[in-house]
């Protein structure tokens, strides 16, 4: 049977839309099948997009794309029960050129879909793909309800749950320590209030990465990102630790939202949307195989994310894998070989990118974030206590910095060997 299209892309997220756009622009017939009423309707991120790579696809994205703010203030916070220690890095050169943008995925992905459409891709929204069509071990198309569509190559851009590749037995299900649930609210706030509160000029933005009592001791962290007229605030909870804790994810989100260290940042805000999203925490350990006979897997579906504790990246990997996939698919279609061998240029192109190098660099980060359990409770308390001893001129004679730190450490329940081990492990993995 003749294929209906050269390429079927399943999923209108960042990876799917960009793969479709690049292939359509090269003259291939492409359809994007999206289960939402429009691209973006089912998509949710924290979300900071490390966007330098986006300029490779859209050189004028800053003038054209509906992004929120350009991140020039990065704040890292160790949040204890009573005290919080923040390190703020103000670096306007991060906007020259722009390095990271905050985005809201509903408008952002809708724009990406428009670009794919303008390049000649056919958008098919409101359709859920149920399974891959296989013929003697090869993917030949997709089934959606009663309908079957065939193509030379199927692109599984169906997100972190990656149902298509898993159901076909092509990719395995990640273990709970390599998955986290992000729980997020978009909090409406006047743009002038945001500018004043976070010390921002014009389109500048701030990004907070927080660990400690914000997740009630569960492995993970909290984030706060400024948008133009709202804040994106949420927690990310590693599923192995969340389930072991017996705590409710919604209750932890409430706990973070009402934390006294953060309340002044969120004051007068009004929740305008509540959402959640599963995210990969395994880094390179989730990568696995990404090309098969007649199929490639991109973005979240390919497990492509990195969490270093300070930067949480997924959207740049979606863009980078889309660029590599489009290159690989174009090569395969041109050569007339869309088998796994023919599509292997995708893997080579991805492995040649800085993204793959970063996955290798941070290969030990997931294990570190899993094992350094004191980071989610005792370390933030310890650091807070050290500074308390410095700032509290309470009538007792002061001690020098080192003595204060030693005393704070003695009062904490942290074992010296553990601190040493975590410190060494952090240096080696982050």
């Amino acid at each position, binding site marked *: 049977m003749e294929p209906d299209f050269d390429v079927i892309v399943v999923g209108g997220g960042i990876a799917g839309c960009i793969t479709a756009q690049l292939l359509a622009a090269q003259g291939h017939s492409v359809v994007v099948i999206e289960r939402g009423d429009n691209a973006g309707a089912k998509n*949710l991120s924290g979300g900071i997009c490390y966007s330098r790579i986006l300029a490779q696809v859209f050189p004028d994205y800053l003038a054209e794309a509906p992004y929120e703010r350009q991140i020039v203030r990065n704040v890292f916070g160790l949040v204890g029960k009573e005290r919080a220690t923040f390190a703020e890095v103000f670096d306007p050169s991060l906007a020259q050129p722009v390095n990271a943008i905050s985005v809201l995925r509903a408008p952002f992905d809708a724009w990406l879909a428009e670009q794919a459409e303008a390049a000649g891709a056919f958008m098919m929204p409101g359709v859920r793909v149920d399974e891959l069509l296989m013929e003697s071990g090869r993917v030949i198309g997709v089934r959606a309800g009663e309908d079957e569509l065939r193509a030379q190559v199927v692109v599984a851009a169906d997100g972190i749950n990656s149902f298509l590749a898993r159901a076909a037995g092509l990719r395995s*299900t990640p273990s709970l320590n390599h998955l986290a649930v992000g729980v997020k609210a978009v909090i409406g706030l006047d743009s002038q209030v945001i500018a004043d509160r976070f010390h921002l000029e014009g389109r500048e933005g701030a990004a907070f990465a927080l660990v400690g009592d914000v997740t009630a001791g569960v492995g993970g962290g909290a984030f706060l990102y400024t948008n133009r007229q709202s804040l994106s605030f949420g927690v990310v909870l590693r599923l192995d630790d969340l*389930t072991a804790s017996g705590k409710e994810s919604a209750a932890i989100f409430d706990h973070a*939202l009402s934390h006294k260290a953060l309340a002044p940042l969120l004051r007068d805000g009004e*929740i305008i949307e509540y959402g959640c999203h599963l995210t990969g925490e395994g880094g390179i350990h989730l990568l696995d195989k990404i090309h098969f006979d007649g199929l490639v897997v991109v973005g979240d579906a390919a497990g492509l994310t990195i969490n270093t504790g300070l930067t949480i990246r997924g959207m740049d990997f979606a863009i980078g894998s889309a660029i590599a996939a489009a290159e690989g698919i174009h090569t395969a279609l041109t050569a007339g070989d869309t088998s796994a061998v023919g599509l292997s240029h995708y893997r080579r192109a991805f492995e040649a990118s800085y993204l793959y190098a970063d996955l290798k660099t941070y290969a030990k980060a997931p294990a570190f974030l899993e094992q350094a359990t004191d980071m989610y409770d005792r370390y933030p308390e310890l650091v807070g206590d050290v500074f308390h001893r410095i700032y509290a001129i309470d009538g007792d004679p002061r001690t020098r910095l080192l003595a204060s730190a030693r005393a704070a450490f003695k009062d904490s329940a942290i074992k010296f060997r553990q601190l040493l081990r975590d410190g060494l492990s952090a240096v080696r993995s982050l």
Partner: protein
Amino acid sequence: MKPLSVSDRLAKNVFVTDEDDPHITIDNTVADKTRLYLAVAACPAKVYTISADGSVCADSAACLECGTCLAVCPPGNGLTWHYPRGGFGVSFREG
């Protein structure tokens, strides 16, 4: 700021409920409900509730479609979960 209850937060979202074909079903006859109970706590939308007799119910209309429940309660443990049919379910305006 007002944190709102989970149901008040969900009321801010846009949902189209599929009355004919709910995308979540629970089989309360499974011998061991441990993993079903994990899904109850892990779900950020509080889709799942435990009744007095220990059985679990699901309100699929409130689902945010993240897949966390299925990750902690994989097939064979009493939960059937897939994405809603095309055009149904949550529709993010912000994301």
